């Protein structure tokens, strides 16, 4: 990755963060913290690695993405709108009656969403199924998954982990958004996740742990995972819940919170400064 590409990705992350905040602020409440913690992960995938086509979102040859933490839909919607899967003004319909952008990801409503998610723990199993379907049909599409660290509380996630390793699904690359916070507090005060990388390694996954807001580290991890031939890959991304949103960064109460117009304005001003510093 050269410096210009890195700058473009950083610039894009600011755009996506701004769209995500605007989307939620327009509604007045939403899952802000866990949406913005994954923006660098989504950006590295949707602007560098994922092979898909906004004009043909159901292309059977495409790479797929399963957002197991379905409540982070707003961040993914911002990316999909920016990529042209649907018009950007649709973002202001989030959670309104009859919308095609529900709080949790819905493959039957939103162009570009590859799996319906929202009941935590189910996404990785679906991703395993998609990876198996691609292998059986000899489809070239890779399957990317994103689970929350709260997802790792769910037993089903570990059932899926065992099966992906058992089936040798090297076409499956998953991320953990390791922001270390869940609704009720710091993750280690609620349900410990220590030695998380060791856990995935011991389950038979090729596991890497990187700074989830560092594009160069994320890029290197994805490239390395794509080289893996025998095992599924887990990239544990150390992230900050609420990253880049000045009024709530690092506060566990940001899981689902009201956002006022003033707060949004404050966040946009901070992002503008960040953007100016890039030039």
């Amino acid at each position, binding site marked *: 990755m050269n410096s210009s590409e890195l700058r473009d990705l950083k610039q894009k992350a600011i755009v996506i963060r701004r769209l995500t905040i605007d989307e939620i602020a327009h509604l007045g409440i939403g899952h802000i913290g866990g949406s913005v913690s994954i923006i660098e992960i989504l950006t590295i995938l949707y602007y560098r690695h994922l092979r898909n086509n906004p004009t043909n979102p159901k292309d*059977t040859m495409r790479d797929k993405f399963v957002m197991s933490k379905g409540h982070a839909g707003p961040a993914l919607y911002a990316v999909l709108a920016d990529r042209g899967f649907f018009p950007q003004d649709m973002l202001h319909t989030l959670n309104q009656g009859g919308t095609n952008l529900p709080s949790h990801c819905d493959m039957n409503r939103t162009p570009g969403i590859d799996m319906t998610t929202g*009941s935590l723990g189910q996404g990785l199993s679906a991703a395993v199924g*998609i990876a*198996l*379907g691609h292998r059986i049909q000899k489809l070239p599409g890779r399957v990317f998954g994103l689970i929350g660290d709260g997802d790792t509380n769910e037993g*089903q996630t570990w059932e899926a982990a065992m099966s992906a390793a058992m089936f040798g699904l090297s076409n499956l690359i998953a991320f953990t958004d390791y922001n270390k916070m869940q609704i009720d507090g710091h993750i280690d005060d609620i349900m410990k996740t220590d030695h998380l990388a060791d856990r995935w390694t011991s389950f038979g996954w090729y596991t890497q742990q990187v700074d989830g807001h560092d594009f160069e580290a994320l890029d290197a991890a994805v490239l390395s995972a794509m080289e893996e031939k025998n095992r599924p890959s887990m990239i544990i991304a150390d992230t900050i819940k609420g990253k880049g949103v000045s009024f709530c960064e690092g506060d566990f109460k940001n899981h689902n919170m009201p956002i006022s117009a003033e707060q949004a304005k404050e966040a946009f001003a901070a992002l503008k400064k960040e953007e100016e510093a890039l030039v």
Partner: protein
Amino acid sequence: MNYVIDRPTAPEAAEMRGVYGELLSELATKDERIVVLDADLMRANGTFDFKDQFKDRWIDVGVAEANMVGIAAGLSTTGMIPFPATFTCFAARRTFDQFFISANYAKQNVKLTGTDPGVSAAFNGGTHMSFEDMGLMRTIPGIYICEPSDPVSLRKLMPQIAYRQGSSYLRLHRKAITPIYADSEDFELGKGKVITEGKDLTIIATGAIMVAEALTAAATLEGHGVNVTVVDMHTVKPIDEELVIDLARKTGAILTAENHQVRNGLGSAVAEVLTEHAPVYQTRIGIQDLFGEVGTQEYLQQRFGLTADNLVSEAQKLMAKKAKNPRPVGA
């Protein structure tokens, strides 16, 4: 008894799981989209040999039913037609959220099969005895629920299940069952099968145990001068409303019979139709708000009243009510 179906000339019992396994192999030979999953019960459910022919489309996930259904949903998004199977108790209770959200809410095409329904779980006892699986499944919007009564109807209904777009729940008796039907009989998913015609009473039964018991009961009742229509309601959802209404009007009394709780199973489905369209006397034979127990199937049928004798006795009470007042209040 006035049969309106072709009966088999020399019926030989066949294991339903054997037929299920054969059918999957037949379907898979013709169609590369068919994929079979199980959770460490391939041998029990008749699909173990599938791997010899279709190694890539045979997926055993170990004892992890929730993951199995989630994987099936993922496979379905890629255009495959997955048939995951496990015992009914796990298929419904253990995987309900996965089947509800990843398969049904996501509008996928997952053909979930539950085996060993109700008292047929016998020696596996109360923990494995599902009297509630249809009840849970019936609350899922748009789902089809099918419980075939014999090897012939299973054979005819399975391809319809496979090629109907949408998720479904097949409630499958695993063990040997003597065919009720000749091979020439046809079945339509969503349409009840009228086996005998009679003017006094309709018995609507579902599944391999209760349809057979209903036919035995009908023969006994015939001897007592009660002329019975017997329906094999192999599809419990969507229920064949038209047929239920028609037979309620013709016979004025309905007895339902199921190897399941009477709450939210076949009896409830029929009662919903009758209450709204054609209120007549109804008695529901099935489990009366009880958990399962261990024992032989024969013992358990006696224990829970899933016998022809109980059907006869309840039918006679129903006939007495009807004789007293041929049309219930409000009918």
